[in-house]
């Protein structure tokens, strides 16, 4: 399934009209040990760029933005008890939330994996 990336270090994996969102391995590395994650409630409507979730490491709290617009279908409940999943498996079990995309074509404006890799290399 195709995966897209934002300049704010979120990833989104798209399966038809469903997207799964998380933060990248680079982002978790920058944050250090994650201690708390707040995911959006089911049914919340998000526009592209909305503050969708909060991730806290020991020192810094950061907002996670919606890469594209949609309606949240599920937040990753496992992160409440095990926020360190974001450190150990950021682009797998450490996903943040799933949403139904309001416009599945909107992901075309995001970076693909190669573009994101060169973006990170430029930082």
């Amino acid at each position, binding site marked *: 399934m195709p995966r897209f990336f934002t300049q704010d270090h*979120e990833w989104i994996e798209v399966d038809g009209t469903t997207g799964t969102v998380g933060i990248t391995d680079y982002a978790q590395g920058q*944050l*250090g*040990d994650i201690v*708390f994650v707040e995911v959006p409630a089911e049914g919340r409507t998000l526009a592209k760029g909305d503050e969708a979730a909060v991730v806290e490491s020991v*020192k*810094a709290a950061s*907002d996670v933005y919606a890469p594209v617009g949609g309606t949240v279908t599920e937040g990753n409940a496992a992160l409440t008890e095990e926020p360190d999943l974001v450190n150990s498996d950021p682009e797998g079990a450490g996903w943040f939330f799933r949403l139904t995309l309001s416009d599945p074509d909107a992901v075309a404006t995001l970076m693909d994996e190669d573009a994101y890799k060169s973006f990170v290399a430029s930082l």
Partner: protein
Amino acid sequence: MSVNQSGWRPERPSAADAGAATATGNRALMLEEPLIFEIGSTRTTGVDFADGDVRHDRLGDLTRKTPIGLPGLSEPETVRHYTRLSRQNYAIDLGLFPLGSCTMKHNPRLNERIARLPGFADVHPLQPVDTVQGALGVINQLAFWLIDLTGMHGVAMSPKAGAHGELCGVLCIKAALEARGDTERRVMLVPESAHGTNPATAAFAGFTVEDIPATAAGRVDLAALKARLGPDVAGVMITNPNTCGLFEPELKEISDAVHAAGGYVYCDGANFNAIVGRVRPGDLGIDAMHINLHKTFSTPHGGGGPGSGPVVLSEALSPYGPLPYTARTADGHIHLIEEERAQEFSDEHFGGKHDSFGRMTAFHGQMGMFTRALTYILSHGADGLRQVAEDAVLNANYVLRRLEDVLDAPFAASGPCMHEAIFSDAGFPDGFSTLDVAKGLIDEGFHPMTIYFPLVVHGAMLVEPTETESKATLDQFIDALRSVATRAKAGDPSLKAAPHFAPRRRLDETLAARKPVLVWKDKAPLADAAE
């Protein structure tokens, strides 16, 4: 997701080198001390009360039928408990405190003596004003000197700390905009080199915050600031000297541009210590600036005293300042102006120019800090205050120049620093960080400097020595920091396990954040507690 740019990483303790354990947990004469509840017993008490005669109480069935079970301690146990705890503390009275913080400089004992005079210490805020003319005189005289030292028009004395003062100043700006019907100005500009509380204050007051970038030299990007000014901008909040330890030489030009665009200029005066007696913010076009009495004017704060953050105001903002305020009339009487008399008094004495936004506090502010700050001002005099600023700047530059060969100093080329010297972690090998240097300094007997702030400097180390420290003390500190920094750059593994000699070794900050213990839990309930 926004990225933590400061380079800060939490640390987990190294399992290796746990150190030799003692049977008691004490380390030589540094004693482990449990919580007071854990030492106490319901069978012990430090006082001997006569049995009360409560046969005629009116509680009926509500009288307690079982003992309350509160643990007590004997007097010597109590004295030892608190004395042991005090030995584990570190304070400005023990040694150099290089944090750029409210604990930074010596609190003169003369201040304490004056503040304890019964006429100041034992007054009540609701006493008739005729009986507290001396105390009100202190507030009024301090107000005069703060206005004089800053070249401003008025002052709000009641704010109780720096951020409270910021809020007061920003509310004055808001009131002034509303008074002229200019309600479309919703944006407050905050440069990256400003204090972290500034954007929080602006947001709390209902403004939208926008960043203005810093230049590579560590100062406000004037062109970017000018480009952003417009009819939606309420003002700018700028810190001078800024958090990079640098003076903003273009502040007058910034003020003129902001005023021309219809906005106001708030200056964060937390670092006023470096310019007191040398620079008058009023001459730079500032509209409002808070002064941390607990920093520049030496009142104790970090060690347990309350903060105090009076706000000096320009002529444009003075009418909107908070109530109450003091005013001396020609007959020598000092008035305390509250809501009931505000309009009448300003009609009589200030040509009716008064439109207060309200109150910041219930009463007049931190009286005990006013007495101390005025004592400090009067005992130093104008020449002494100027020397405070000059010596503080000289000390910071001495630290900067003596360490710049071992530590990267990102703004060393930006000219002399002001109140603080800033270094970065550039040149440290992989796996070694600013935190390791801070922990190593603890072993050397120094409180670490501020670390990982300002955010714009990677792995920042911020040293604010102030005028308090002698050259001999600074030399000891510099030698210690040189040694630790050299070990970090050489990748000395023993530094990763520092501190080796503190009562606690390196703490597991991640575990503390993931599984915080916020409530005391009785591990072994006292057997007799339920009797």
